[in-house]
């Protein structure tokens, strides 16, 4: 019986090529996009999930008081892990990690490699479940000069994993002994490093004679990411409380922390979607993509249902005959379900194939190496799930409709009608509601991205080349500055301590006014020289710039927000103490964004240093390549061993919003597919409507109706649905998009014209689709259509 069903289904497929092609095209496109979204979401949600007991592992964030509020930092101090391990029984493992930013270049057999490394506690490999491929587990990171390589790096550098005991040269001066090789850390992780150094080497910097005696008691340096593996997820509150207690008792600057909860334990699987304080960051995008997934699947399913039911009248005769010659409802139902199964199987097969073909494009678009793993992993299950759900949702209604025909009526051709079906009208409307929503989403995201690039951050970022000086260069800062100024194409040179685009520096070591601090304040400090403010065209609103003379060392320039935070109405001339240096405020600079626009503008304090490490070069932009070449030449003179690592401010600025740009690009794709699939369905429906109304059109034309009148007759019904859809979609889209905009502190307004434009675009596309068939029907010779009656 089933074979028989499939056979008939196949013949039906071949017979009505136009209808099936439209239906299949829509379904395949929808399913392909759905597969990509599923992979993308799965990748987002599986961050750090390779770690053995990842549900029990937390990152410790520090809650630091600042000007009456609390700032949460993703980093913490060395003692946190040490105390957690010794004093808190609920903690099973504790690991500190500090990126190795002092070494950059590693050399094996005269070949240089740029690799990323981190200092870790030895328990790291247990906590993140990295299998040891070579070496002795007991003595991996005991020595200060030990290093563990990942498998990929061992093979890249040495061609083998049999490397224990060999030497790795760093920056042409230090030498590390390789003590082990571990399996690679997946990319989708917060600990995706290639080299692991011993944290012991950081302990060497401490001595009993210094203020901080040892790493395990240094409460002052927030250089570490602390990972804790708890015995149970129920212990989070208890551990947080104990950590707070320990901090309050042992930290000499205990009051710097929020005394209610000095720390926040964040699940490591959430680190990519929430910020260090646990506030949503990427998660809203994931949610929105989840919604998009449902919308696109719904659009594809609705297409299938609409076309299947519209076509049902053509099959009514067959159903009637079958009923008369003995078919029961069950067997007819089985037959139509079998047809859907065949149809959906072809679609999903094509979709998976297409996904494979398009994977590189999609990887490029999403800038994520998304892998289609059909043999292992959960993906085949998800695809099967999508297949079954869409199949069930789309096939049952048309099948029930088909088998419900009364045999005698159907055989006389009394059933069917495209425009009459109320359900179909609702479905078309729903489909266009979704399409309009996606178009609005695309427009809002596009506007926000424009807003980000056009927003004045408080400084001029055009044509500013910047890089870190090397140590040997910095020793001759004055000469270097002179020589850089002389390079043709360079119109200004300035040195500062930080990148202005994203200055992560912060300190609470600040006093002002009479000296008594009524509240803690965390400011973002930056050392600059006298050229900095003019070079970046920052706006001094009070006082004056540094002069480049020795008295500048006790002068400060603060931002508007800093002035407000310190309660100063007239800051110039007031006392300020930063890093134990007492001085006076000489200028106030207009607020500028030194973080991305997802964060509020914080208070900034600038102090004077003529020889800070970060170089800013304003270029004329006429011969940029020549200018860069000259800078590189200068760099090589001082630093022959390293290549120059430079960037342009505007490029770095854009890079900050890379993730959002990606979301924007993906959204473009999704809404194009959605509107395409919806219009395919509409095209199919109009075709059937035109077929059904052939006779009516013929009669009207004979009676003198114009082409326009006939076109309107056919288009009107559908276009009304699109208008209704636009009206329904607007509030829904508004709600979803303000969810996305929540991530940004500074955002574009969702003006009315975005909604009007989205509705207009959809209506226009729908009108083109519908009128194509309508006009075709309208200009046909009426004699022909009437003769066939």
């Amino acid at each position: 019986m089933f074979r028989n069903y499939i056979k008939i289904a196949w013949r039906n497929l071949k017979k009505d090529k136009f209808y099936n092609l439209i239906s299949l095209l829509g379904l395949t496109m929808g399913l392909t996009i759905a597969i990509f979204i599923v992979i993308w979401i799965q990748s987002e949600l599986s961050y750090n999930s390779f770690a053995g007991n990842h549900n029990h592992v937390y990152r410790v964030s520090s809650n630091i008081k600042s000007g009456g509020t609390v700032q949460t930092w993703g980093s913490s101090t060395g003692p946190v892990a040490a105390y957690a391990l010794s004093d808190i029984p609920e903690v099973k493992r504790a690991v500190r990690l500090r990126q190795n930013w002092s070494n950059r270049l590693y050399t094996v057999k005269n070949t240089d490699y740029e690799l990323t490394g981190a200092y870790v506690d030895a328990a790291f490999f247990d906590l993140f479940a990295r299998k040891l491929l070579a070496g002795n587990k007991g003595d991996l990171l005991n020595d200060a000069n030990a290093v563990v390589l990942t498998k990929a790096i061992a093979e890249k550098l040495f061609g083998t994993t049999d490397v224990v005991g060999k030497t790795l040269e760093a920056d042409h001066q230090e030498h590390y002994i390789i003590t082990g090789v571990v399996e690679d850390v997946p990319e989708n992780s917060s600990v995706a490093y290639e080299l692991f150094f011993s944290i012991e080497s950081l302990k060497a910097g401490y001595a009993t004679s210094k203020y901080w005696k040892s790493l395990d008691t240094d409460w002052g340096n927030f250089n570490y990411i602390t990972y804790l593996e708890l015995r149970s997820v129920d212990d989070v509150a208890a551990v947080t409380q104990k950590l707070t207690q320990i901090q309050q008792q042992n930290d000499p600057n205990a009051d710097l922390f929020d005394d209610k909860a000095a720390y926040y334990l964040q699940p490591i699987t959430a680190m990519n979607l929430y910020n260090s304080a646990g506030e949503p960051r990427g998660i809203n995008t994931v949610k929105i993509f989840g919604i998009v997934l449902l919308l696109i699947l719904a659009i594809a399913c609705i297409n299938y249902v609409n076309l299947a039911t519209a076509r049902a009248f053509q099959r009514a005769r067959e159903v009637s005959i079958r009923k008369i010659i003995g078919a029961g409802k069950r067997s007819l139902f089985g037959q139509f379900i079998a047809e859907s199964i065949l149809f959906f199987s072809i679609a999903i097969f094509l979709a998976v194939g297409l996904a494979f073909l398009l994977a590189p494009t999609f990887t490029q678009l999403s800038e994520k190496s998304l892998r289609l793993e059909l043999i292992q992993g959960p993906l085949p299950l998800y695809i099967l799930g999508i297949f079954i759900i869409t199949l069930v949702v789309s096939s049952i209604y048309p099948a029930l409709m088909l088998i419900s025909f009364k045999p005698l009526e159907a055989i006389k051709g009394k059933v069917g009608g495209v425009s009459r079906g109320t359900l179909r009208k609702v479905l078309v409307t729903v489909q266009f509601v979704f399409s309009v929503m996606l178009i609005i989403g695309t427009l809002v995201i596009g506007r926000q991205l424009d807003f980000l690039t056009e927003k004045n951050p408080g400084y001029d970022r055009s044509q500013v080349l910047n890089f870190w000086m090397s140590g040997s260069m910095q020793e001759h800062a004055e000469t270097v500055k002179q020589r850089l100024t002389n390079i043709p194409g360079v119109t200004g040179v300035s040195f500062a301590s930080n990148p202005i685009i994203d200055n992560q520096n912060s300190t609470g070591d600040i006093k002002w006014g009479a000296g008594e601090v009524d509240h803690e304040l965390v400011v973002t400090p930056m050392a600059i020289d006298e050229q900095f403010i003019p070079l970046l065209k920052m706006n001094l609103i009070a006082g004056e710039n540094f002069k480049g003379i020795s008295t500048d060392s006790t002068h400060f320039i603060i931002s508007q927000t800093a002035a407000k935070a310190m309660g100063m109405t007239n800051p110039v001339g007031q006392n300020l103490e930063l890093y134990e240096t007492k001085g006076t405020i000489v200028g106030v600079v207009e607020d500028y964004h030194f973080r991305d626009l997802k964060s509020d503008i914080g208070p900034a304090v600038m102090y004077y240093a003529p020889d800070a490490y970060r170089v800013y070069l304003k270029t004329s932009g006429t011969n940029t390549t020549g200018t860069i070449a000259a800078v590189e030449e200068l760099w090589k003179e001082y630093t022959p061993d390293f290549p120059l690592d430079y960037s342009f401010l505007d490029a770095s600025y854009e890079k900050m919003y890379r993730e959002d740009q990606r979301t924007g690009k993906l959204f473009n794709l999704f809404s194009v597919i959605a509107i395409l699939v919806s219009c395919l369905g509409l095209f199919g429906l109009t075709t059937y409507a035109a077929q059904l109304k052939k006779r009516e059109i013929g009669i009207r034309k004979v009676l003198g109706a114009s082409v326009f009148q006939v076109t309107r007759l056919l288009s009107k019904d559908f276009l009304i649905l699109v208008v209704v859809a636009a009206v329904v979609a607007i509030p829904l889209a508004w709600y979803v998009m303000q969810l996305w905009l929540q991530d940004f502190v500074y955002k574009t307004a969702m003006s009315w014209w975005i909604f009007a434009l989205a509705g207009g675009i959809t209506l226009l596309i729908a009108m083109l689709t519908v009128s194509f068939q309508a006009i075709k029907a309208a200009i046909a010779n009426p004699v022909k259509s009437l003769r066939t009656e």
Partner: protein
Amino acid sequence: MLLQLNHIYKWVKQGGKRVFLLNDISLQVEEGEFISIMGPSGSGKSTLLNVIGMLDEFQEGEYNFLNESVHTLKEKHRSKLYKEYIGFVFQAYHLIDELTVYENIETPLLYKNIKSSERKALVADMLDRFNIVGKKDLFPSQLSGGQQQLVGIARALIAKPKLILADEPTGNLNSKQGEEIMQLFKELNQEGVTIIQATHSEANAEYGNRIIHLLDGSKTKA
């Protein structure tokens, strides 16, 4: 007795008035009869056949088929009854376009859940009997009208019905093809199958052993 109609009335409302499609029809059919129903277009021939075939309902009267009172049966039961005992032949053949000759004939057996081997034998017999073995893999569109009607009859017969209802079976055929079909009905009737046909043609009506004349839904005396 195969079936009995007692005072059957069927009407539709048009502008508040009843328009009778069947007006007080009583009819008794014995097994083995060959009845022709005659009358002009709109006289109610097809309606009567559909009522007998249980495809259509009526408002008043009684209908007994093999001692079951059809007018009291539920839809499900009724369709079971006609599927079991009645075969239909249509003027427009009503073959399934997507199925081959073989498959068209086989389909009723599929719905009766008859085993594959038995199906094969039954269909082969039928093809043989109607001399269409060579056409078994063709689709309806590749056949002439007469051949299509042969397949239609074969399909009606395959489930071994007691009664064949034929609505203008030769209406779309030329006279020679029509004659062949009527000859076939005659043979079938001689083998014991009860046949009721609706027809316009005097000549075809003569194949039957009883003729019923209809006009405006009522029986008239011939």
